[in-house]
């Protein structure tokens, strides 16, 4: 399901420079995931990586740190505490970066729509390039989603990170409204 | 032309006078000491008969190069020590005068029995001086051991007299050459015990710890340098040049000397009080000197003896003064005491380093000659023991010096605030003389020729059998 991208540019008229096209080709064929295993969707990823579905065919593989990762997979409901960490970790990733929301909890809060702790719509806080519906999508849906993501990157439509940069204040206003503040000093760590 | 007997007679005369003129006893003592020092320079070598009877029946004073040097050094040191702590001499002036006479007598006499008489006189003055520290138990101990020692010496002498019929040293040594030394073990050994008690050798020096440990700056340095020096010179005379020792006896005496050396050093290593360290070091040094005399080395032993008594004079005076003012001589309580009186500190350090035998100090020159002599006599074990003793000695002296110079806990920079709060003021004459002595030690170390020239007389007598270090290198400067 495609994002209702609110930037006005239609996808026909291609303004990217030749160098960016080549870059997008490389970035499309080699996407490294920073899967944040927030909710119940994380368990769907091992099957997509191992022998049956093998996402390495698409050039995708897991990476340990946000600095090295290209795509941030949000695989489940996001409580306010986890959302703060997600935003901090998203900002640590290198441009161009993409966000993929798994499951209905990221789309509209899912079964936790009325909980006082979980957010209801991910793209208020982060620029989501791709949602994969399902109350946890099966590996086929995940692979299909990744395929869509790859074609989007190739066509240069996965510009969530540009969108995040351009209207950063809109995003941070949403974040502060929902979370109070993003960088908290919690007692357990220092 | 002047008869050396004056060196004995004048102090005795002044001793009796001082009993009469109570209030200026100190000046009399000073006059006697000065006279003796001047006298030494005037007298010439030779044998002086006393009381008309010719040797070997009468008593003669034998003034050769050896005793000339002995008398010279002892009198100078006596004068220096008295001036150094002259505020303490008032009480004991007469005793000191008698002691001065006795000391000179011991060194000059050519007659063994006369030596016994002077030994008795000197020991008595020693007992009296040791009472100053009010620790009568130790003085009593010293008295008992002293009398046993001199008694045994007399007993040995009587046996000798029975055998040889004469008491004159030269006569006895001449007759001994032809006599079978195997038979003389008993008298020689008894005489050895007699002198060993005063010379602080190992089994006989029970008294040393009590007496030296609590002596003040005057008495301490007197015992450690003047008394010890005289006894060792006499020991050298009797056992080095007069008596002819059999192989067996030499081995026993060397063994005793080595045990004293090692035991003294190790005991000093375990001590923490300054004066105790010094007294054990002087026990060790006297053990070393005794064993060297017995092995037949004269010239290097005398050098080592000089080194010992000069450094001990300086160190004991300083240690005595410190313990008098700060009423403790625990090194840990006196951390950094030298920080605020540097001259005393420097002279103490120089004499300590010279005692260890480090180069550029006089001690090194004597140690080299020592080793040369020993190696020429091919007994390597004794040399090895001496070097081992030097290592231990270096360890505890450096530990002491480092404590006294640089205060500070482990792991922190040493600085002024760690200095002990006990105040010690050294008066002017102590500072001057201590510094002058340490200067002499330094100069003698840097250019040993200085020591060589004024020992030239000494040299002629002794240069034939043991190689002197100076001759080889520079071809007789």
């Amino acid at each position, binding site marked *: 399901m495609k994002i209702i991208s609110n930037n006005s540019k239609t996808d026909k008229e291609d303004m990217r420079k030749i160098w960016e096209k080549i870059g997008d080709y490389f970035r499309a064929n080699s996407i490294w995931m920073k899967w944040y295993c927030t909710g119940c969707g994380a368990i769907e990823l091992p099957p997509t990586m191992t022998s049956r579905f093998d996402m390495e065919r698409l050039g995708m593989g897991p990476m340990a740190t946000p600095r090295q990762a290209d795509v941030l997979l949000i695989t489940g409901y996001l409580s*306010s505490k986890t959302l703060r960490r997600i935003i901090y970790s998203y900002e640590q990733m290198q441009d161009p970066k993409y966000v993929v929301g798994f499951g209905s909890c990221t789309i509209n809060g899912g079964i936790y*729509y009325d909980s*006082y702790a*979980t957010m209801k719509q991910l793209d*208020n806080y982060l620029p989501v390039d791709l949602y994969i519906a399902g109350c946890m999508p099966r590996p086929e849906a995940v692979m299909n989603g990744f395929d869509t993501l790859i074609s989007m990157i190739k066509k240069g439509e996965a510009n969530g990170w540009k969108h995040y940069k351009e209207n950063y204040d809109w995003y941070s206003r949403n974040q502060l409204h*929902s979370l109070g*503040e993003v960088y*908290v000093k919690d007692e357990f760590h220092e | 032309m002047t008869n050396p007997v004056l060196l004995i007679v004048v102090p005795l005369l002044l001793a009796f006078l001082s009993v009469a003129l109570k209030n200026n006893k100190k000046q009399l003592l000073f006059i006697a000491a000065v006279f003796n020092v001047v006298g030494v320079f005037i007298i010439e070598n030779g044998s002086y008969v006393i009381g008309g009877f010719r040797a070997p029946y009468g008593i003669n004073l034998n003034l050769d190069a050896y005793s000339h040097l002995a008398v010279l050094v002892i009198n100078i040191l006596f004068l220096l020590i008295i001036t150094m702590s002259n505020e303490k001499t008032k009480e004991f002036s007469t005793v000191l005068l008698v002691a001065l006479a006795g000391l000179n007598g011991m060194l000059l006499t050519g007659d063994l029995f006369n030596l016994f008489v002077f030994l008795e006189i000197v020991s008595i003055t020693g007992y009296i001086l040791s009472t100053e520290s009010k620790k009568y138990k130790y003085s009593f101990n010293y008295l008992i051991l002293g009398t046993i020692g001199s008694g045994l010496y007399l007993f040995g002498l009587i046996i000798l007299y029975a055998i040889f019929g004469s008491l004159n040293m030269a006569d006895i040594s001449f007759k001994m050459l032809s006599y079978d030394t195997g038979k003389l073990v008993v008298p020689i050994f008894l005489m050895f015990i007699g002198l060993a008690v005063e010379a602080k050798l190992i089994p006989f020096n029970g008294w040393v710890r009590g007496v030296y440990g609590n002596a003040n700056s005057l008495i301490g340095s007197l015992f450690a340098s003047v008394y010890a020096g005289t006894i060792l010179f006499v020991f050298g005379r009797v056992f080095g040049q007069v008596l002819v020792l059999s192989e067996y006896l030499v081995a026993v005496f060397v063994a005793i000397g080595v045990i004293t050396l090692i035991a003294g050093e190790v005991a000093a290593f375990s001590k923490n009080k300054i004066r105790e360290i010094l007294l054990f070091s002087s026990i060790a040094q006297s053990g070393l000197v005794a064993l060297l005399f017995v092995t037949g080395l004269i010239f290097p032993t005398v050098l080592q003896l000089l080194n010992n008594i000069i450094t001990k004079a300086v160190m004991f005076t300083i240690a005595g003064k410190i313990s008098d003012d700060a009423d403790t001589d625990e090194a840990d309580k006196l951390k950094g005491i030298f920080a605020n009186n540097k001259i005393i500190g420097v002279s103490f350090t120089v004499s300590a380093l010279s005692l260890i035998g480090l180069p550029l100090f006089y001690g090194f020159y004597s140690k080299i000659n020592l080793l040369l002599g020993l190696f020429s006599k091919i007994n390597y074990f004794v040399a090895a023991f001496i070097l081992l003793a030097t290592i231990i000695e270096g360890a505890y002296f450096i530990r002491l010096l480092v404590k006294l110079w640089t205060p500070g806990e482990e792991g922190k920079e040493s600085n002024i605030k760690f200095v002990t709060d006990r105040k010690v003021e050294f008066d002017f004459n102590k500072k001057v003389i201590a510094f002058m002595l340490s200067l002499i030690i330094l100069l003698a170390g840097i250019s040993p020729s200085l020591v060589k020239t004024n020992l030239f007389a000494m040299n002629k007598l002794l240069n034939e059998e043991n190689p002197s270090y100076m001759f080889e290198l520079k071809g007789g400067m």
Partner: protein
Amino acid sequence: MNSMNSIYENLKSKFNILGVDYPDDMQMAIDLDEKDIHTVIVYLKSIGYTQLSMLTCVDWIKEGVFQLVYIVFNWDNGIHILVRTKLDRENPKFRTIVEIYPGAQFYERDVHEFFGVEFEGNEISYKNLFLELWDDMPPMRKDFDPQKYSDEKYAAREYKSKFISEVGGEK
């Protein structure tokens, strides 16, 4: 069952027990007045109920009362005892039992955060445990409406088409 009775008789003889209930086999619930909770718990601990399995609070909003439930467990005979008491709902105050069961510290903190029950003597219980930067009344209270809080806090997604409502899922 009979061991349960003997325990009950033993307790009944010692303390003024308001009510007893057997919610499950090997479980016994006793209701006590507020002031002798501590004595009972100390007693129970002394006779072998060494583990405090649970401290929780039940919000009886209609009766206007909070009910604190202490569940202690005896490893020898395997019996759980639920010690229950009722607190006034307006300003719920109670004495801490950290001196008896040190482990109660976090339970009291949890109850304080989600119900607002004050436990004197346990300062840590005033700090928040799970919720970060919480700015509303304790959420587990019945009068707290999560739906309203969620809608006001987290913007929901507006759907152009009314698809969900036609299916009959009334909000």
